[in-house]
Each structure stands twice: as structure tokens, then as C-alpha cells.
């Protein structure tokens, strides 16, 4: 029973659908280590397949690195406030780990999911920044990336905003409004509480999932060592015990391999999706913060506008010559206030839609993860049972002899 978003996504994703249907899909592949020493990094091939007119042709391949993905995310976060921008895998803290095969693969998979989620999101997929990311040549991309860092890149509008923030803080103080302005509708409160609690629960589940991966590996290792020890013991014994020990040891080593394999599966197909879930919730928290900021602005600008209006009326009554100026200020402030309100309301609307999408998406993705996990565990257990069972006939025969 697919939801409408799933159907849409499937249509978008499939390059095999008839060319009349619009599609856009991307894949992140072939991680390659470039550079030396401290400046070494991993680059990825990003392959885009699409029939959308905005794109340069049916297929395009570009080379991107992690910071390019970060750029894309930051831009989307900035421009599409209210949307739950898909999360990125973390920057690695530990130097040693940064280039391990496991880490690289986990990151590649996560980046692949990241791009595809954007490509299938109704609003985000139309983003110009996405197009840049998927198509621009490497030099252009690098330029874009450098532009976004540091204070030198703040646009004039941003400076005005900062100024106004200071202003409103001053007026707050003047007006004795020390309390932070916060949205407090019951539904929104519930949502915020839900998100914050959810993060805690998910983090715990993810922690145990990660430990479970380790346990698989540890059990595998101990069986390997046990197998070896038992084989050596068998070498000291006469028959039939000696041969039986040797067989036992071999089986033990075999079971050990199965466990190591499953450990990898659990990591990629169960623990990583849980980690992704946690990241998603953290991304939502960031959106919540944005909404709070927008709300604050909307409130404050409304207040300021009101003050300006009062001031204007006063001036009009006294027929001051400052009326003209004040009127202009008032209109400007009103316009800004209306913009702020629109921005805020857009965030609210988006978030309402996003929440529905998010819940459905997560149910689907978690369902898949659970199913794969259960299948994997069943497969492992059956494999283990089969392996040991093969020894029983010989053991039986030796016992009754």
C-alpha cells in the first residue's frame, strides 16, 4: 500500500519509465582518495540521469567531495526554511578512521541517499542549487563552495537583518519585554516535545544496534580462537576424538565467518538506517529553531510596525513636518512585517506537509530495515544450525561405538 509520495518517488526515480514521464535520479559512486597527508580527501562520482529540460542532457557525471555536499545542504536549509532538509553523515572526528574502507562505504551510501532524497522532494528538487551541484564543473563548484564561507559573503540583506535584530533587542529592553517570544499552540508544543523525546529514544536504540554489531564480531572472533584451540587439542588425542575435535574446530571457524558477514550486514542495513533516523530528527530540530526565529521576527516586526503606526498617527495629529518621513518608514516596516509573516506562515505550512511525509517515509524506511534485520538474523541462525548439525551423525556414531 504505497502512499502518494512513494508513488511519486518511484516514478521520479526510475530511468526506465517512458520518456514522457519526468524523472531525476542521481547516484554517488566510486570513492577515490585524493591528495596527500593532512589535506587528503575522498572524491565521489555523482552520476545524474534525467529528462528534465532544466538539465544539460540525459546523463551527466561530476566529481564532488564532502564539503560540496555540505554546501548544498546549507544552501537548501537557508532557502527552503520549513522543509526538513535531508541530513548528511557526520564529519569524522577520528583521523585514523577517516579512510577506513568501512567508513568510506558508509559515507558513500549515506551521501547517495542524501542526494536522492533531495531529487525526490517536491520542492527541493526544483532548486537551482541542486542543479549547480549536479552539473557544474569542478572549478565552478569550488568557487561556489569558497564563496559561502566567512563573513565576507554575507549579502547586504543579511547585514540589515543583523542590524534590525540588534534594534529589536534594544526596543525589547526599552519596552521591558525580557521574555523570549515563543509560539505556544498545543499542537506545536506536542510536536516539539515529540521530536525532542524521539531523538533520545532513537539515540538509545542506535547505540544498542551499534553494540550489537560489535557483539557479532566478538562472538565471531571467540569462535575462531576456540576453533583453533580445539584443533590443537585434537592433535594431542588419538582417534576418534582427535578427528572429531578437528572437525569441531573447522566448523567453529566456519560459523565465525558467518558471524563476521552478518555483522557487516547489521551495520549497513540496520544500524546505519537508525543513525540516519537520528540525524533526520536533529535536522528537524534545526528547522524548529528556524521556525522560532521566524516567529520571533514576525512578532517583533509586527510590534515595531504597530509602534511606527502609533508614531505616525501622533505626528499626523500634530501636523509635524516629519510626517512624510514617518509615513515612508511606516510603509517600509509594514512591508517587512508582512514579509516576515509570510515567511513564517510558509514555514508553518511546509512543516505541516513535511511532518506527514517524514512519518510515512520513516515508517517505510524503518520497516525495510527491520525486515532486513530479521531476515539476516534468521539466515544467520539457520546457517549456524546447519553447520553444527552436520557434525551430529559422526558424533552419534562415535558415542554409540
Amino acid at each position, binding site marked *: 500500500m504505497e502512499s502518494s509520495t512513494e508513488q511519486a518517488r518511484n516514478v521520479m526515480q526510475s530511468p526506465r519509465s517512458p520518456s514522457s514521464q519526468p524523472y531525476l535520479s542521481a547516484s554517488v559512486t566510486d570513492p577515490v582518495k585524493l591528495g596527500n597527508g593532512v589535506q587528503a580527501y575522498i572524491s565521489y562520482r555523482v552520476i545524474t540521469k534525467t529528462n528534465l529540460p532544466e538539465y544539460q542532457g540525459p546523463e551527466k557525471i561530476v566529481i564532488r567531495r564532502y564539503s560540496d555536499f555540505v554546501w548544498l545542504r546549507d544552501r537548501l536549509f537557508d532557502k527552503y526554511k520549513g522543509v526538513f532538509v535531508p541530513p548528511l553523515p557526520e564529519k569524522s572526528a577520528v583521523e585514523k578512521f577517516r579512510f577506513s574502507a568501512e567508513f568510506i562505504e558508509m559515507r558513500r551510501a549515506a551521501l547517495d541517499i542524501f542526494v536522492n532524497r533531495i531529487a525526490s522532494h517536491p520542492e527541493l528538487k526544483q532548486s537551482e542549487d541542486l542543479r549547480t551541484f549536479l552539473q557544474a564543473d569542478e572549478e565552478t563548484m569550488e568557487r561556489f563552495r569558497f564563496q559561502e564561507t566567512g563573513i565576507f559573503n554575507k549579502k547586504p540583506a543579511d547585514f540589515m537583518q543583523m542590524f534590525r535584530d540588534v534594534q529589536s533587542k534594544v526596543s525589547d529592553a526599552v519596552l521591558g519585554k525580557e521574555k523570549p517570544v515563543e509560539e505556544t499552540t498545543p499542537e506545536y508544543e506536542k510536536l516539539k516535545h515529540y521530536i525532542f523525546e524521539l531523538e533520545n529514544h532513537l539515540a538509545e536504540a542506535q547505540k544498542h544496534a551499534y553494540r550489537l554489531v560489535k557483539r557479532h564480531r566478538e*562472538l565471531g572472533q*571467540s569462535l575462531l580462537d576456540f576453533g583453533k584451540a580445539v584443533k590443537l587439542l585434537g592433535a594431542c588425542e588419538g582417534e576418534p576424538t582427535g578427528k572429531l575435535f578437528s572437525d569441531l574446530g573447522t566448523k567453529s571457524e566456519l560459523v565465525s565467518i558467518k558471524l563476521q558477514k552478518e555483522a557487516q550486514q547489521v551495520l549497513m542495513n540496520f544500524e546505519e538506517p537508525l543513525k540516519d533516523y537520528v540525524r533526520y530528527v536533529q535536522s528537524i530540530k534545526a528547522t524548529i529553531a528556524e521556525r522560532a526565529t521566524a516567529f520571533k521576527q514576525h512578532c517583533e516586526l509586527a510590534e515595531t510596525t504597530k509602534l511606527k503606526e502609533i508614531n505616525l498617527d501622533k505626528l499626523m495629529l500634530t501636523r509635524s513636518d516629519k510626517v512624510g518621513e514617518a509615513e515612508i518608514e511606516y510603509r517600509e516596516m509594514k512591508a517587512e512585517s508582512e514579509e516576515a509573516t509570510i515567511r513564517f506562515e510558509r514555514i508553518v505550512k511546509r512543516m505541516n506537509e513535511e511532518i506527514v511525509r517524514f*512519518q510515512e517515509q520513516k*515508517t517505510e524506511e524503518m520497516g*525495510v530495515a527491520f525486515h532486513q534485520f530479521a531476515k539476516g538474523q534468521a539466515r544467520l*541462525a539457520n546457517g549456524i544450525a546447519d553447520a553444527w548439525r552436520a557434525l551430529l551423525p559422526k*558424533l*552419534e556414531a562415535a558415542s554409540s561405538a
Partner: protein
Amino acid sequence: MMGSENDDEAHLHASTEDMENLFLRDDKSNSDPLSPHPITVATPADSDPLSASPQSKPNGGDSRSYIEPPSYADVIFSPFDDNSEINGSDDTHSSDYSLSRSPSSSVSSDYIKITVSSPQKEQETSTSMLSGGGTYITYLIATRTNLPDYGGGSEFSVRRRFRDVVTLADRLAESYRGFCIPPRPDKSVVESQVMQKQEFVEQRRVALEKYLRRLVAHPVIRSSDEVKVFLRVEGKLPLQASADVASRMLDGAVKLPRQLFGEGGGVEPARGGRDLLRLFKELRQSVSNDWGGSKPAVVEEDRDFVEKKEKMHDLEQQIINASQQAETLVKAQQEMGATMGELGLAFIKLTKFENEEAVFNSQRARANDMKNLATAAVKASRFYRELNSQTVKHLDTLHDYLGLMMAVQGAFADRSSALLTVQTLLSELSSLEGRAEKLEAASSKVFGGDKSRIKKIEEIKETIRNTENAKNVAIKEYERIKENNWSEVERLDRERRADFLSMMKGFVVNQVGYAEKIASVWTKAAEETSQYDRESS
């Protein structure tokens, strides 16, 4: 000891189990956690393990027995064990748990069961200056047996203190040279000061029980006077402690059994002043053997014995190694079960949370999926823990054999020391004869005889005769010990083979059985989430 961990673990999980219980009880209505899964092992027709197991009761019945993981003590009956010596409902901690020996070591109708229990403090009553009015612990040692040696079917019990056990062990070592006598528990003075008194007493009680059970498992020693007296005679133990300080201090000293005193009694054990002299001679001999350069410590002529000894040493090393790896394996299995359980719990919490906070149907669906996963994880975790307590029981055989290998070493040491005695006497003999020759040669040069020399020669010849006798006795003893060695090693090899076989079988049967159970739990969870099956992977 591998087994003790499970008890602690049971406590740790007490609170989490409450949650698990609540959760699983709700789930009982629509799930049969232990649908009898066909085991492909050929079990005896009269014991269907699944129906007999206390743990596979149907849902409607006593669900508590399923939910509570078995503590190590309760697991006497393994659902998957093909052991013919199953002791059904004997649930108490101190019930008979003998090594799962094969039929070779016990005839079906003979039995002797020993339990050690109820430690209690007693006051020193003697006025001896050594003890000085302190306290000591006694243990109740109860025996149930139908061995004819003990007078048919009977039960009896005595109180003994640890010192009595030391005495018993020492007397057995003296009487049964060449035998593989199980080593007694350590005196462990340091531990008794470091540990809590209770812990120490309990540890000692367990060790004593194990030791006594091993003793009576030995076909010869179980019928010895020493053991009989120890087990039956109430009051003060009527065995003399070896006052033989000198010989106890110096290993390799001669300790001849009492029986030999009757036989031409020429050789007394090296005791007292004169015997210290012999002791030192023997030491010197063994040292000269040692430092003879190319000569081994004791000149052992028997190639087979040397080989056997080396083989035993190798075997011991490998048993040590395997025992260590077994312990690591048990820990890893335990951790797996614990983490799986924690994962299940985390998802139980998530399920509750999503259900409480649900605004959308997608949340309710997810909560349901999580519930299925959590249920499977919790059940699997239980199975891992059960599997582990069974594994401990089986792999413990390795640990037990470490003790027995020490017994073998003891037997071999007896042989070496007997040989050392023979060699000492031989070299004494040859040096005496040398002196006699010299004296005779010197005396014959003196015309008319040399009264003092002649007297000396007489004395030496007397000593030679005595030493000759002693040598013959020592050789007989040596031969006897060799015999004992050989038959003991044979017996041990046979029993060890059988025990190891039984261990392997038990281990494997358990692995198979529990893997199947775990598989069925996860298969069910996979079915419940089958709508999420995407074949793309």
C-alpha cells in the same frame, strides 16, 4: 569459574526483566514462542526433550518458567542433552551434579552421591599451643550410596573441617603412589584474607564438594580405607596427619607406604636425623643426575614413559588453551544475549512512545513494526542466555580436566621419586662396595690381619646387606608404582575420550537446538514485516 557469572547476571537483569515480562505477557495471546520445533538429533525414544523440559510449557500454563531465564544452578536438565544420567527434578543447588561421565565410569545401578553443605563456625577446644583458642569452619558432608563397600544402601553424614581434608589428601598421596589422585582444593591463605568471609566459605564449600565427588568417582580410591573413614566416622577424624615435616618440605623424598613396614622392614621412610642424611643423598643424586650434562633428571630407561610424559604435558597445555578460549566464548555469547535484550528493550520503549504520541497512522504502523522487532529481540536474547548456561555446563569439562591433568602429574612424580630412591640406593651400594674393596685390599697387605680394618669391613658388609635389602624393596615399589601409573593412565585416557566426546556432543546439540529456536523467532519477525520486502538488495 565460568559458571559463577550467570548468578550475577541474573541479578542485573532483574529490573529489565520486569519490563520484558510486562511486555511479553501482553503478547502471549497471539504468539507461541516455543512451537515444538523438530530437532533432527536422534534422541532416545523415551525422552522427548521438548515436552519434558520445564521451559517449554504452553502459554496458558505457568508462563513464569519461560520468562525467567534459568540461573546456572537450576539448569540441571538440558532440553537438548542426550545424557543418559538425567536427574529429573532435583532442583536444589546442592543436588547431584556429577561430571557427565559416560557409562564407562559408572555401572547403572551403583551410585554414590556426596553433598557438602551448611558451613558453621566452631570453637577450638584443644589446649594445644598451636591453635590458641581460635575458630574454624566445619562443613556437613552427606553421603548417599548403595556401594557394597559401604554396606549396601545407606546414608550417613559427618562434619569435617578443611584441615581434615588436607590430612585425607596427604594419606591418599602416601597410600596410592602412582595413582592419578584428584588434587585437593588449595589452602589459599591469601584469598581467605582478601575475600569476604561468606564468599570465601561458599567458594570453599563448592571446591570441597567437587573434590570429594571426584575422589569417589575414582574406582579404586572410592573404596580406600582413608575415604571410607573420612566419610563415615563421626567426631574427630581418626587419620593421622603426616607429622613428616621433613619429607613434606622436600618433594621427591621417599614416602613408603605403611604396608612395606611389614615386609622385611629394612627401609624406613627418610625421617629424623638419619633420614635427613638419606634425603640429602637423594637430593644430591637427583642434582647429579640433573647436572650430569647429558643425563636427564632421573635416568628413565623407559622410552615409552618419557614419550607418554611429554604427550601428557602437551595435552595439558592444549587443555589449558582450549579452556581459556572456551571461557572467552562463553563471555561473548553472554554479551550477545545481553545486548540483544537491551536492543529489544529500547524498541519496546520506542513502541510505547510512538503509540502514546501518535498523530498519524504511519506512526501506529511503525509502532507495530517495532513491537514485532522488539518481541523477537527479547526472545532471542533469552535463548542466547539459555544457550550460554548450557554451554558453560558442557565446556566445563575442559576445566575439570585441568585438575585431572595435575593428578596425572602427581602420579608421574611418584614414579620419578621412586626411581630416584632406587638410583640413590644403587649408587650408595656401589660406593659402599668400592670402600669395602679398598679396605680389603689394604687389609690384606698387612701381615697377620688388621683388627681395626677387619672390623670396619664387617660393618660395611652389614650396611651393604641392609642397603641391598632396601634396594630390592625400593625396586619392588618402583615396579608397583609403574603398574599403577600405567593402568591409571589407561583408565584416564579412556574416560577422557568418553568425556570429551560427550562434551562435544552436548555442545553441538545445544548450538543446533538454540540456533533453530532463534531462527524461528526471527523468521516470524521477518514474516510480520514481509510487506517491506524489497528485492533490490
